[in-house]
């Protein structure tokens, strides 16, 4: 089994989730659990730092589509930053970038979420 871990912190209204490891079904579920837990407390702005998740698969990314869907229900937003080029390309092919945003730094993401 691959190791996957995440760190969750808040910057004002924005929840930042920093992942490390292979974003597969297991990793995707951990990200969604973290998001849904924060959504229950009223949070609806999420930024995911994928700097240390340079390998993904479509099952893990599909779980991000589930998060986008749930955030649409509450007028929330999802963004990402520090993506490896192949991860950004995968997000483009799967259409995630139509409904969520790729940023190039945490600062840009926080500004974009405001």
């Amino acid at each position, binding site marked *: 089994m691959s190791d996957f871990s995440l760190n969750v912190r808040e910057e004002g209204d924005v929840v930042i989730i920093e992942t490390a490891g292979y974003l597969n079904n297991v990793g995707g579920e951990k990200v969604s659990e973290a998001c849904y837990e924060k959504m229950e407390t009223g949070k609806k702005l999420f930024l995911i730092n994928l700097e240390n998740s340079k*390998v993904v*698969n*479509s099952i893990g990314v599909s779980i991000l589509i589930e998060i986008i869907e749930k955030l649409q229900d509450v007028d929330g937003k999802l963004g990402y930053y520090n993506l490896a080029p*192949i991860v950004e390309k*995968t997000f483009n*092919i799967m259409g995630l970038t*139509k409904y969520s945003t790729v940023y190039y730094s945490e600062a840009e993401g926080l500004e974009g979420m405001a």
Partner: protein
Amino acid sequence: MSPKDAPKVELTLPIIPDMELAATKTAEVIAKHMNLGEEKTAEISMALIEATINAFEHSESDAGNVEIHFVIQADTLVIKVTDKGKGFDPSKVKIPNIEEKLGSDRKRGWGLKLIQELMDTVEFESTPEGTTVTMTKKK
């Protein structure tokens, strides 16, 4: 060098979670040998992850293994991913789009689309005895 004489690398992967990453490590070594560059190497690895996961998940194979053959041709890398599952009809696989996935219970099913977008050519040979996906990437 004729395709017949091209160097080959063969892998047999047990159907174990995350074993697709073993295939990507091999692909990275081969891509480096072929001087394919970072972008193409990453595209090959991503397509290989998807093809291997599909073989693991959809083959319902009793054999418990997936075979991966890399053929190193002068200007092209050929990768064949073979399972001994029940096969499928590629023409019946619906091309997914996110608009349909949002609001649907099934968010998955992106593997073939990603493979087709990331590789130069993709062909499927599928029978009730198994499936081989053949993908190529030019230098």
